C-alpha cells in the first residue's frame, strides 16, 4: 500500500505537531558552568559575589616557598603548601578596579588588555572588543610605549576608507601612535617590561597579583589567582562589561537627545 502524498501545508503541520509532542521529552539540565559562556557573556558587576570568586579558584595562591612578602596583607593563610588569598581583599581591590575602569570609560579613554598566556587569547580579544579598546595576546614588543615612534611606526598598516561604491580601499595615511589611558594586565609577572614602560610613560595599570608577584608592579593590584583561566576570564569579563555599560549609557543619552532635536 503506497503512502498518500501530503501537501506542503500538511507536511508543515505534521512537523509542528511532532515537535509539540517531542519537545517535552527528556531531562532539564540544571544551570552549570561553561567555559565559553563566561567569555561570550561574562557576568556583570552586579553579579559579583564571593561565591563566584570562590568557584573561579581566585583564592588559590602559589607555593609558600616562592612568596613575595609584599602580598602579606592579601593572604588569609596557608594550606596544603600554598597560600590562600583572602577573598575579602580581592573583593575590595576588584571593586576599586571596576570604579577606575568605569571612570576611564566615561571619559572615552583607551583601554588596553594584555594576556599572553595560553588560553587567554579568546577572553582578551572579546574583552577588548567589548570595551572598544585594544588587546595584546602574543608578546609585548619592547619599546611599544617608550619608543613608540620607532616600534609602532614599524608595525605597518594603513587607514582604510570606503569609496563611492562602499568598497574598502587603502589610503596613504598611517595611523598615529596609540597611547592607552589604562592597561589591564592579566599576568604581570610575565609582562614586566610592559609594567615598566607603563610606569615610565605614566599610564595607570590594573593587574592580577598572585602571592609570588610584587603589588608595586601595577597601579591597582587585584589579589587573585593568575594561573586559573576561569579567574582571569572572570576578571577580564567584569572589567570589559563595566566599560561596555558606560558606553551604552552614553549612547542612550545620545539617542534620547536625538528625538528632541527640531526637525
Amino acid at each position, binding site marked *: 500500500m503506497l503512502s498518500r502524498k501530503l501537501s506542503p501545508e500538511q507536511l508543515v503541520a505534521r512537523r509542528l505537531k511532532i515537535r509539540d509532542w517531542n519537545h517535552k521529552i527528556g531531562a532539564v539540565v*540544571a544551570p552549570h*558552568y561553561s567555559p565559553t559562556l563566561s567569555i561570550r557573556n561574562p557576568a556583570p558587576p552586579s553579579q559579583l559575589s564571593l561565591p*563566584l570568586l570562590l568557584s573561579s579558584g581566585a583564592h588559590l595562591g602559589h607555593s609558600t616557598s616562592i612568596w613575595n*612578602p609584599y602580598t602579606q596583607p592579601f593572604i588569609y593563610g596557608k594550606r596544603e603548601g600554598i597560600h590562600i588569598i583572602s577573598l575579602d581583599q580581592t573583593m575590595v581591590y576588584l571593586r576599586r578596579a571596576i570604579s577606575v575602569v568605569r571612570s576611564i570609560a566615561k571619559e572615552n579613554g583607551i583601554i588596553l588588555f594584555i594576556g599572553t598566556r595560553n588560553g587567554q587569547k579568546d577572553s582578551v580579544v572579546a574583552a577588548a572588543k567589548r570595551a572598544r579598546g585594544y588587546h595584546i595576546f602574543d608578546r609585548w614588543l619592547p619599546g611599544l610605549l617608550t619608543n613608540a615612534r620607532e616600534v609602532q611606526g614599524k608595525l605597518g598598516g594603513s587607514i582604510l576608507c570606503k569609496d563611492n561604491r562602499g568598497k574598502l580601499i587603502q589610503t596613504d595615511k598611517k595611523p598615529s601612535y596609540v597611547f592607552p589611558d589604562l592597561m589591564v594586565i592579566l599576568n604581570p609577572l610575565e609582562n614586566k617590561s610592559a609594567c615598566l614602560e607603563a*610606569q615610565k610613560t605614566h*599610564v*595607570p595599570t590594573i593587574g592580577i597579583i598572585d602571592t609570588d608577584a610584587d603589588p608595586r608592579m601595577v597601579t591597582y593590584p587585584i589579589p587573585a589567582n593568575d594561573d586559573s583561566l*576561569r579567574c582571569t576570564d572572570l576578571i577580564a569579563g567584569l572589567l570589559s562589561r563595566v566599560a561596555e555599560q558606560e558606553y551604552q549609557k552614553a549612547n542612550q543619552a545620545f539617542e534620547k537627545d536625538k528625538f528632541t532635536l527640531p526637525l
Partner: protein
Amino acid sequence: MPKFNANGLLRSFAAEMKKPWTAESLWYETVAKHPPTFQYARRIVPLYDPNKVKSRGKRLRKSMYQPQEIQWPEDKLRKRFYRDHPWELARPQIIAENDGNDQQYCDWSHMDQPRKALSGESVVQRTLWLIENSNMPVENAYDQARKEFYHLRAEQEIQQRVAHDQAQALGAVFTKSDLELGYEMDQNALNSWFDNASQYAEANRTKFTDPSVDISKTTQ
C-alpha cells in the same frame, strides 16, 4: 628608588606636570579620585594555633606576620577515610564548581545527592551531619556513614553490571577496554624490540664475544 613603583603614579606625574609642555592626562581625574594604595603595610594575622603563642622574643614577633595554617574539622575525617580506602583516590572526580553555592544544594540527612557524585567527601559531610544532628560520637557516626557509603557503592556496581548485561542482551557488542588495548600495544612494542635486539646481537656477534674463547665448542 625601587624598580617597580607603579603605585606612585600621582607623585611621579606631579613632577612631570610642572613642565609647561605637559598637558593633563585623561586618567588624571580618575586616579586622583581613586588613589592607589601607596604602602602595603603588614597586618597582624590571627593565631589559630594557640601553641605558637608560647614562642618568645624574636620568634613571637616574626610569627605575628607569618600566614597561619588553615585547619578545618573535615581534615581529620578526610585523612582517615583516604587512609582506610586509598583506592577511592584513583576514581576520577570533577573538581570544577558550577557556582560557589554548590554546598547549598546538598542535604546531608541522606548520603545520596542528586547534584554531587558519590565520593569520600560524601562520607565526611555525612559524618559531620550525624555528629551535629544526631548527637552521635565520632566513631559511631563515621561507621554509619561508611556503611551507607559501602551500600551505595554496591548499588552502583550492581546497576552497572545489570546495565551491561541488558545492553549485551539487546545486541550491543563491547570491544576491548582501554587497559586491554594498552597491554596489547605494550606487548607489540616489546616484541618488536626483541626482534630488533636479536638481529642486532646476531649481526654484531664478533664484537660482543671474546676472541680467546673458542666459539665452535659452544655451538655443539
